[in-house]
Each structure stands twice: as C-alpha cells, then as structure tokens.
C-alpha cells in the first residue's frame, strides 16, 4: 500500500498542535492589545477644535481656575462647556484682532455656539456626577490628567469601566485634600504617604466605595 502522506506530515502535524495553542494565545493577546490601544480608546489622542484652544496656556501659564469656565462642576453632574461670552470676557479686550480667534468673535456676533468637539464623553447608559466627586476630594487631574500641560486637549483615561472601578475599589489611593481639588499641578505624595492620607480622608469625607451596578447604570 502506498503512503498517503509525505514524511514531513509528521512534523507539520506536531507543529500545528503546538502552533494552535500559540496562535490562539497570540490572538487573544492581540485582541486585548487592540482594545487597550489609543487607536480604539482615543486615550491620549489630540482632538482638533474649531479654535485651537490651549489649556496649557490658559490653565497653566495664566493660572485661570478650572471653575472660571467650567462653572457648574461643583453643583451639577455636568462640569459645563463655557459659552462664547466667557471667552469674550477677556478676548473683547485682548488679542481682539487675532485671526485665530475670528470664529470666537463670529460666534459672539451671530449668537451661535462654537461647535466644540467633546473630548471626554461617557456613554448614555452611565450615570456620572461631577459635583459628588469634586466635593469628596477627587481632583480634576485625577481623571482628566495633566490638563495644564495640554496644548490641544486629549482624553487622559480609557473611560473603560475598569478605569472607573480602579478608583471606586480603592479610593484611598487617589483622594486628596479638598483644598487641592482644583490645583492643576497637584502632586500626590509617595505611595505610603498617600495611603495614610487617603485612609484618613476616606474616613473624614465619609467616602463610600460604591461598586453596585446600579451606582452608575441607573
């Protein structure tokens, strides 16, 4: 009886058995890497805006408080995108002829909104409230990153549920003194000290680490 398969089939079959395990593992890893990549999450991807607004200039170099523009952050679920009038409080006086600011002036003249591009947007099935976070000692930079160093604003986190839960499961690692919440240059102390401070603040601010589904998915 003649052989059906060539001798090399032995090698091929062995390689393919071990290869299958490797390939399945590699595929799983690749899927995970894609899911975590900026290409998929938009993390650290700069957004083009109608006016190239720089947080680095305004919040960093000039030192304007976050709340000057994001007025409702302490009272409302939504921090608020400022109306053109807020820009014009200064820009009706300075850089009045800058061509870069023409869309702002046009918006003011025509009474139309500037079409800002949303950088951090949670899905509609997630309930999120800025005011409770801010008033319990969660700093702006904890979630939004080093905004005072961003020329064009980018998303600092993945906005995945794991990113939310990372803090909800261990708030003592992130919480800071209430007086430091709006400090864009706040540096948290060393890990051990942060833990000590965090535990004290969690107790003092009565922070409850809610993790039930219905905390956010109402």
């Amino acid at each position, binding site marked *: 009886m003649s052989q*059906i398969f060539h001798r090399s089939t032995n090698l091929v079959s062995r390689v393919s058995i071990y290869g299958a395990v490797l390939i399945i593992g590699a595929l799983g890893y690749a899927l995970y890497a894609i899911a975590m990549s900026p290409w998929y999450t938009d993390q650290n991807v700069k957004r083009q805006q109608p006016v190239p607004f720089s947080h680095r200039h305004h919040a960093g170099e000039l030192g304007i408080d976050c709340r000057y523009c994001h007025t409702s952050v302490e009272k409302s679920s939504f921090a608020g995108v400022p109306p053109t009038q807020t820009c014009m409080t200064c820009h009706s006086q300075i850089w009045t002829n800058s061509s870069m600011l023409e869309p702002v002036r046009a918006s003011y003249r025509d009474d139309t909104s500037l079409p800002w591009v949303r950088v951090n947007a949670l899905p509609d099935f997630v309930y999120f409230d800025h005011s409770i976070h801010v008033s319990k000692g969660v700093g702006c930079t904890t979630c939004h990153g080093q905004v005072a160093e961003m020329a064009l604003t980018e998303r600092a986190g993945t906005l995945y549920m*794991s990113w939310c839960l990372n803090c909800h499961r261990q708030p003592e690692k992130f919480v800071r003194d209430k007086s430091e919440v709006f400090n864009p240059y706040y540096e948290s102390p060393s890990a051990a000290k942060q833990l000590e401070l965090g535990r004290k603040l969690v107790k003092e601010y009565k922070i409850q680490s809610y993790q039930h589904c219905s905390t956010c998915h109402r």
Partner: protein
Amino acid sequence: MDSEGSRNIAGVTEPEPIIGPGHTFETVTDKISSIVLRGGTTPGWVFGFLIAFSLLMLLNLVVTLLMIKGVGIWGIRVPTAWGFAIVNFVWWIGIGHAGTLISAILLLLHQKWRTSINRFAEAMTIFAVMCAGMFPLLHMGRPWLFFYLMPYPNPMWMWPQFRSPLVWDVFAVSTYFTVSLLFWFVGLIPDLATLRDRAKSKAAKIIYGMLSMGWRGSAVHWSRYETASLLLAGLATPLVVSVHTVVSFDFTIGIIPGWHTTIFPPYFVAGAIYSGFAMVLTLAIPIRKYYHLEDLVTMRHLETMAKVMLATGLIVAYGYAIEAFMAYYSGDANERYMMWNRIHGPYRGLYFMLIACNIVIPQSLWSRRVRRSIPMLFFVSLVVNTGMWLERFVIVVISLSRDFIPSSWAVYLPTKWDWATYLGTFGLFFTLFYLFIRFLPMISIVEVRSLVHETSEEKPHS
C-alpha cells in the same frame, strides 16, 4: 446485569448473545465500514437529509429574524420570561445524558452490551448539546455578546456573577460538550484509520487519514488509546450526574413555587437519562432496520434499554409524587396553589398528558412482549420523549405564569416562531445525524471486534 436478557430454559440460565451469531473480525469490519465506504448516498438517505436540512434552514430564518427583531417574536411575556427557549434547552440537554451514561459509566462497569450503541449514542449527545446550547444564547436577546458569560480579562473589570446558577450552567454545559466531543473523537480514531485503509478514493484516504492522526495500530498506540479512553470515561462519569444537577439549580435556586425544592437534582438526572434512552431507541430502531444492523444492535440491546427506561421512569414518577406530597406537606399556600393550579389551572390538559406519557404508558414495559415488540417499543420511546418535554413545560411555564401576585398572572402561549425555533433545532440535530451516519462508522468497529474476540474465547467454557 449479565443475567439481563437471559432466557430461562428448563431451569438453566443461558445468556442471550449480545451480537448475532456467526460474526468474525472480517464480517464486523466489513459490515460497518461498507455503510460509509460502499453504501453510497442512497435515495432514502437523501430524502431524510433534505427534510432535516430544510428544517435547519427554518432555524436559520428564525435566528436571523430573532437577531433583527429581538426575543419579542417569541411568546415570552412577563411573568413568563422563560418560555419555550428554556423548556427546549432542558429537554435537549437531558437527551444527551444517555450517550454519556452509555459510553462512560457502562464502560467503567464493563457492560459489554454498550459497544454496539455507544458510538451513535455519543453522537446523539454531542448534537443534542449543540441544540441545547443554542437556546440560552438566543434567549439572551443579544446573542453576539455571549462571551460576557465567560470569565475573561476585560476592560470592564467584571467577572460573571458567580452566585448565579446561570453561570454554573455555562461551565457545566461547555465542559460537558468539550468532554463528550473529545471522548467521541478519541473513540473514533482507530475506526477512522480502518476507513482510511479501506477507502478507495484519494480524497477519502486523505480526509480519514488526517482525522485518524497517524494511527498505525501499534501496541503503544493501543495502550495509549486504552488509557485515554479510561481517563475520559472517568472525566465524563461525574458529568452524567453534575450537568443536569446544575441545570436543575437554575430552578431550585429561584424561589418560585414549584421550583424551590430539593428533589430536583436527582429527579432531573433520572429524567435526563429517561428521555435520553427514549431518544436512543427512537434513533436506533429505524437505523438498524434501514441499514440491516439487526445482528449488531440486537433485540437484547433494545430490551435492556427498555428496562433502563422503566427504572428511570419509576424514579421520575417518585419525583412527581414527592413534589405533590411536599406541596401539601409544606403547608405553604403558594406551593399548595401551584399543585392545585397544575391539576385545575389553564394548563391542566398538559399535566395529565405528562402523567400519561411519563408514568402510565411506560408501565407497559413491564411486559416482556412489549419490550420485544419493535413497533410498541418505538411508540413508547416517542411517548416518553413527548412526556419529558411536557415535564419541562409544566415546570417552567405553570410555575411562572402564576406566582405570588395574582395581579401579575398571565397565560403564556407560544407563537409560531417558538414552534419554528423548536422545529429548527430538530433540523440541526438530524442534519448532523444524517451526515454522521453517512460519513462516520455509526457503530464502533473496534469495540465490536473485541466483543467478537471475547465471545469466541468464552465459547469453549460454556
């Protein structure tokens, strides 16, 4: 069990042979392999396959519609959120249990009569589990997110809810499917090598050659084959009991009247084996006739299976009795009402049909004449299959449609799409089964050969 099927002639017990007389290694191999290799595609096979395949296309249609429109096309409405989908899931998965019992437990217990029926009983298991597995996935509403059921590293940082029996189900059923498939395939390897060696066409040689994974029949191969079979049998044995136990937990962990009882796990397992053996009979009787396998799947096989059915049927009957007694004895108004509702409520007809199909009619199997009559046996097997489906309907629907709050009561009625999904899974099952009997040896050549060997050795002693 060896005295099973024995004939008492003049006070001397003489065991009836397991397979017909006059078989040698050559005739067994030739008979079984020729069905695949030389039998070809007969008109009868094509006819049956086409019916099965058109039902499979019906399933295709329903699933597509379900993906587009959602589970609202089914009759499930609050309070009966578990309708046909769960009834059919439990029914199909129960059917699978006979295959595992035959191939694993009876192997460990050295029951020789299993050899002629284990191959297609195992195939039945695998195809039934496939049909069963579809229902919970379709019932989820968003089947494409089925992987949420698995614990895998995900950006939500979430595990499935391990306290929920529905998650235990995922593990039970997927383990069951994996082990059954492996067991079946390992058992097939020497037979696939036989087909490879006997095949005439080049394509068949290559395909069976690849599937037989280089089997040469050396002593080392046989030794490893035996070890692997035993290990897999050992793995599969607890599954016979565990899978349907976990399925019954889907109900017992809930507090719905009629579900929250401790009798469920044993009575579900008995019911599963009951319906499984009924399905093996339903399949075996036409197959042995059509392919002239009467001397391999003998009357003794059919009679033994009928006895298993009778025994498990009595356990199931005991389960029903205890259910009714406990409802009375608990003194709980809701439990008592549940039982009253089964007998007097809108579904009473189905409850009485269930009692007739699962308890009354199978008692005819006490009679040797019924056990040895092919039409009667076939009829009883169909009746038991129906009865076991009704049992799941009674458990799922009657309890849910009238629970604690009378204001929320509603009668559940399946829609045409419910029926179409159910019929569609028959299409899937029989399409796979037709392909199986056409392209794989439906009886284990190796095991029947070893049976021939042993019986011929025994002869001089008797």
